[in-house]
């Protein structure tokens, strides 16, 4: 046998020996160990700590070994509004099945219910977090999973509240199936790359449901955002994929279904924007493809500022919006094609389901309001209706090239 094989067997034996020594430590009333801190101090990497039902007020619990911390029957970890409840400072940690409440408040150190520092392969799954400052805070983490947690807070003011799931300078995260309510931002991403946000529900958060900055090459898929203070904001980011998300009922003066600021090379498909003040707001955004999305019953379906370039808006449904689209300039460098506009009044002689007359989705009134926001006071005035009609027949003020040359006759089934 070669030296290499000996070496391999030796390693195998060592690792087997290691796993066979992995212990299960029980914590709880009537057990030999009654505090989690004690259990952590006697444990070794690879151990499992099972915490029985009960209320644990142990201040700040620091997990600095690769252990699996499991709660049985939802033990409650209480931070007494003073401490960060769980601090993870090791790779390969799993935290599951806990009820974590009342973390300390503090803008200086951003205390969280669960905070992960500089670690890899941490899994946080199936916990409930109530009334914490930050819910789950990930900083400098890689390959971590945050899954099926329920995160709630009930602060009234933005400055008294942290974010539900806060991710900073991380890579390859999976944020899956969490429910976040009442925090400042539901999910917050800054300098996070190659991550996925999937099947989360973020509603009634004070500021944004999802807040994204400088986070490239991420995907968020099948999430549900409802009634957040300002909707969802995706800013200063490249290569984001957004699919099958629902953005609903973000009503308010500065609320958007989604706000895109300085965004480029992104792909939007199958999203639903329903009953928002503004469905999507594009500002300084380039090379975005938006297809097969639904814009329904919004104030503005889509507002595309004139500083946007080379965006492609195709095969979408625009239905029942007060204004389908609006823009603030005359220069149009974006492409609209094959969308369904419910306000389209053209005809289709050759029955190919594409209208024979190009459609100008920009109404005169939308242009007026964009230049002169107070003119919104004349909304639903008969005069405005007349002006709009005559502009549709003879466009003079609306940009000529803001046009869908192939408007669909009927809506897509999305």
């Amino acid at each position: 046998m070669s030296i290499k094989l000996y070496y391999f067997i030796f390693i195998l034996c060592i690792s087997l020996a290691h796993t066979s020594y992995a212990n299960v430590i029980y914590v709880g009333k009537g057990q030999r160990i009654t505090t989690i801190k004690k259990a952590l101090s006697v444990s070794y990497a690879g151990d499992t700590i099972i915490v029985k039902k009960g209320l644990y007020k142990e201040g700040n619990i620091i997990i600095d070994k690769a252990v699996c911390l499991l709660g049985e029957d939802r033990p409650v970890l209480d931070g007494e509004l003073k401490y960060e409840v769980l601090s993870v400072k090791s790779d390969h940690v799993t935290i599951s099945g806990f009820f974590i409440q009342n973390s300390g408040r503090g803008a200086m150190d951003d205390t969280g219910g669960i905070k992960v520092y500089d670690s890899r392969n941490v899994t946080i799954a199936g916990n409930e977090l109530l009334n914490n400052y930050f819910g789950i805070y990930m900083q400098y983490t890689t390959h971590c999973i945050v899954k099926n947690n329920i995160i709630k807070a009930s602060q009234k003011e933005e400055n008294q509240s942290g974010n539900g799931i806060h991710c900073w300078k991380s890579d390859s995260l999976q944020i899956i199936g969490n429910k976040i309510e009442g925090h400042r931002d539901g999910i917050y991403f800054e300098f996070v790359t190659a991550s996925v946000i999937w099947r989360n529900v973020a509603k009634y958060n004070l500021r944004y449901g999802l807040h994204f900055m400088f986070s490239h090459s991420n995907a968020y898929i099948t999430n549900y955002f409802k009634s957040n203070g300002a909707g969802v904001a995706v800013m200063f980011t490249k290569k984001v994929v957004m699919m099958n998300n629902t953005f609903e009922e973000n009503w308010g003066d500065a609320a958007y279904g989604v706000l895109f600021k300085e965004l480029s090379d992104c792909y939007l498909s199958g999203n639903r924007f329903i009953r928002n003040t503004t469905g999507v707001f594009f500002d300084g955004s380039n090379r975005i493809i938006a297809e097969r999305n639904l814009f329904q019953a919004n104030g503005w379906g889509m507002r595309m500022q004139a500083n946007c370039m080379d965006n492609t808006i195709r095969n979408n449904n625009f239905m029942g919006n007060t204004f389908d689209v609006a823009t603030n300039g005359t220069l149009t460098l974006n492409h609209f094609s094959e969308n369904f506009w419910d306000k389209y009044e053209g005809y289709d002689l050759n029955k190919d389901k594409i209208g024979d007359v190009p459609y100008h989705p920009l109404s005169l009134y939308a242009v007026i309001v964009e230049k002169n926001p107070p003119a919104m006071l004349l909304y639903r005035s008969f005069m405005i209706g007349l002006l709009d009609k005559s502009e549709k027949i003879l466009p003079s003020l609306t940009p000529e090239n803001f046009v869908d040359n192939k408007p669909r006759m009927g809506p897509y089934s999305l």
Partner: protein
Amino acid sequence: MTRILKYVAIDILKNKVVIAYAVMLALFSWSAFSLEDNAAKGVLTVLNIILLTVPLMSVLFATIYVYNSNEFIELLVSHPVKRSKIWKALFTGLALSMVAAYIVGAGIPLLIFADWDVALIMIAAGSLLSVIFVAVAFLSSIITRDKAKGIGISIMLWLYFALLFDGLVLFIFFQFSDYPVEKLVVMLSALSPVDLCRILILLRLDVSAMMGYTGAVFKNFFGTNTGLVLSFSLLLLWVLVPFYVSMRKFKKKDL
């Protein structure tokens, strides 16, 4: 006065136009609510009816009615009845019948389909608009003895309030777009009862969020309870001023 009111009311009922008007309003509103897929859109359609049809109908019908009642008025004046009482009774009869037609026609579907607070404010606004434009009709029919001229003035006034005024407001927005004219325009729109009603109703609907800063100014001004009282008293002023001017003229008029 009540006896004159009774005669007027019976006469209007016999006329059947007001009944037809109520039926038409009902047809419009019911179809608006049943055709649109959501109630909010139906409300907006009914809003258009309120803002255009109700003033037009009120002002035209009332003007023509006053001219046609000339002989009746002359007959009454020969009796020992105060002139002001005759004029008041005529006004009350017409206003009540227009309001009744509106409430029966548009009010009932509104109460059934729309939210209560929206429905109530729309009913109040529509009723007030009916009364306001009856008052305007009284004014224009007393200004001139010539029937064609009187009806012409009525139609002009309707055109002004329903169409031109908004055009003027828009013009001011554009001319003074570099200045902070929001507050001024909010004041200005209080000068037209149609606009005031429209904005009062819009503030109750979801679209108020789209109005941005001006909407906020307006909401602070008219959206509060004192503002609501203020705006309704403004609307009442729109009833009282034209009517009292017309009554003063009627008292001195050589019939």
